[in-house]
């Protein structure tokens, strides 16, 4: 099964992350051409492919795109929280000023 995606709408990382949970049953191949990517899904066992795999995979990829987009907003904050938890610093205010957009 081949699925087409537009890289302007969804990133290759979202497509790969979404593939992860299916790897026990399917092999995924990604072919990029310009801003398009073709995802080829091949069943590993007995050649059977789940009928709704395309919609399940597309929805999973969209959710991963949301994760990637929202993480851009909070990634540095998460790193600061973990750093502050284990090695507290006394200049959090200054560091926060640096990460403001």
């Amino acid at each position, binding site marked *: 099964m081949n699925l087409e995606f537009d890289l302007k709408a969804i990133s290759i990382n979202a497509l790969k992350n979404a593939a*992860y*949970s299916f790897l*026990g049953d399917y092999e995924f191949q990604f072919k990029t051409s310009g801003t398009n990517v073709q995802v080829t899904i091949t069943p590993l066992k007995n050649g059977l492919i789940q009928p709704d795999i395309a919609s399940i995979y597309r929805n999973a990829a969209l959710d991963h795109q949301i994760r990637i987009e929202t993480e851009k907003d909070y990634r540095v904050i998460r790193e600061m*929280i973990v750093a502050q938890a*284990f090695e507290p610093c006394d200049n959090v205010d200054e560091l926060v000023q640096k990460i403001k957009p």
Partner: protein
Amino acid sequence: MSEFPYRFLPFRFERFDRSILLANDVGEFCFLDSTVFDRFIHRQLSPSEEMFKNLKSKRFLFDDHLPEIIEQLAIAYRTKKQFLFDFTTLHMLVVTQRCNQNCLYCHAVSKSQDSDTCETDMSLETAHRCVEMALMSPAPSIKIEFQGGEPLIAFGVIRSIVDTANTLNENIGKNIEFVICTNLTLISAEIIDFLLQNKNISISTSLDGPESIHDACRCDRAGVGSYRVFKDKFRLLQSSIGKERISALMTVTPYNLERLKEVVNEYVESGFNSIFLRPLNKFGAAQVNWGKLNYNVDDFLVHFKEILDYIITLNLKGHYFPEVYTTILLTRILTPYSTGFVDLQSPAGTGISGVIYDYNGDVYVSDEARMLQRTTGDRHFCIGNVHKNTWGDIFCSSQLKEIVDKSCIESLAGCAWCVFQPYCGGDPVNNYAEQGEIYGHRYANEMCHRHKGVFNLLFEYLRKNDPEIMDVFWSWIMNKPINQIAISPGSYAAV
């Protein structure tokens, strides 16, 4: 629609039936309708909306005061990871490999009682060295757990270890607890006297259900079921040291999977105050007998839900009787605290929270690591020997650091974006045994499948938010009968 100027704080999400479950790194969670979720991620929630205030108070978004929020979340995160500050608290000692039983699922690959003791029992010299090693742990409180085989076969070694630890500890001042993991069949007057003299020793035993279930897997070397002896010794022990010092684990097998209600009734009738529904580990004899013992994870989850509903009903009738695994997970989900369950934490508890000293002084990062060695000869998780290595050699080794490093689920594929990650943990030994490498593959991992199933079940209860069930859950978390924690006193009977 215009965007509002709020920003996101770290969170994970998963579609949960018709709604979205959000959880942040410190375990706070909420359910959103999918349309509200869409508005949330597109920054379309107005600050005047209740949902905005809810998400802000639960620290999924912020519009101001970021330094203070980072401080608060850092404190909450540190609290959740408190187990890291104590370092190794659980020290398991295999005082003998010999056992008078021959259980169908024996993880430890025990040897017969008449085996050569030089090849099976811990020497007093090794025992002394293990105690010294355990007391070097920086943890202010430690637990020394006696494992086997059947540890009471080597009761003399246990006595020596307890005496040595108590004596050495006079100058160290740690809180020490001891646990003997025993099938109870060798309990004697001498052992009871010893337990009466040493109040900091508790007993952990095994009971798989009523006689027909228990004896299906737990027989002596001649193939005779152990239930009747177990019950006699249990009553003797209970009447002498009290039921508070005795707990039991049950192992879920195909023999009791569909009869868990009978198992729970057996526990209640025997006077146990809780039950731990423990799935079978595929190690040792369990691996050899896997054809007889295997069951499907989905079947486990179906029966787990049924029995949890039954246990909740018992509690609502006034019997305080928690399911221990559920209680651990609920404590992680509903409170800010860390729990001491070494089998499910990130980084994994291997070596840094719990460690096991084999009869010959070899040190393994977990009981499963020792079982792996017994089953396959693979010493991948052996991190030293008490006679050859110092505490620093063993616990600061690059080998242990690598194991711990690879067990941080925050950075593992599949776990990194899992909504249940704040409550879950890694199991590098199981990954290695099942899948051939420490990282493991979540998409084909039975443990992951099972944990996700249990988390889904618990979050379904939490989403429904039934006041009575929530009272039961809080009674388990607070370790008090339901009639002592309910908002309306007298709502529940006391039994």
